[in-house]
């Protein structure tokens, strides 16, 4: 009876370890991809793309692995980790968007390989509309 209980506990520990290894491995892989993208990509906008998406997934996986480790192996359910994971998941893409918009507004050129630029035409349309409104008034 007691022996089988121990065996069950043992296999659960192995399963939790496998889960932690998968999560942290994914996170480390995506962190490395983030650094690679920030070094290799040609201009600010593509670098923003690399830094916002893949680094979000990377840090999310590593934090989830840490959370699972402290929950199952040490019996600590840390609510601050949950809040931090949700906060990072919401704010990291927003930060990437903010930097990209600020970079476009300060007039940084796009790379030479860029095929189309929708933001320029959108800003032109908005400026024309504002001028028409002023003339109508």
């Amino acid at each position, binding site marked *: 009876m007691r022996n089988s209980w121990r065996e069950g506990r043992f296999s659960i520990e192995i399963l939790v370890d496998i889960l932690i290894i998968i999560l*942290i491995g994914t996170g480390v892989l995506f962190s490395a991809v983030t650094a690679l993208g920030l070094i290799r990509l040609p201009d600010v906008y593509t670098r923003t793309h690399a830094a916002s998406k893949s680094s979000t997934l990377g840090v999310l996986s*590593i934090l989830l692995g840490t959370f699972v480790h402290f929950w199952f192996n040490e019996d600590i359910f*840390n609510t*601050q980790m949950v809040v*931090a994971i949700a906060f990072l998941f919401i704010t990291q893409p927003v930060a990437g968007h903010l930097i990209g918009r*600020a970079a476009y*507004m300060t007039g940084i050129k796009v790379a030479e390989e860029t095929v189309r630029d929708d933001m320029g035409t959108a800003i032109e349309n908005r400026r024309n509309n504002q001028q028409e409104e002023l003339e109508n008034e």
Partner: protein
Amino acid sequence: MMMFYWVSLFIVSISFAGLLFRLVKGPTVADRVVALDAIGVTLVSIVALLSLIIETEFFLEVILLMSILSFIGTAAFAKFLERGEIFDRDSR
């Protein structure tokens, strides 16, 4: 398991060094802000891995604080780049 944590910390530190390269070299200011944002996020994962290695749960409070500070810093930098000031009184 401990070996796995050490190897993960090593790889994340190498990617941290790559981000530092972009922070130093980056041709424009926006590049450096992007690199700073990614450095904050990578620092969070380094703290998480360190708390796994040292086997203490007291580092976990640092994670929330550091993510909030990183987001506020990035938002302030973006607004400063776009408007030229961070606090504007007469916002219309």
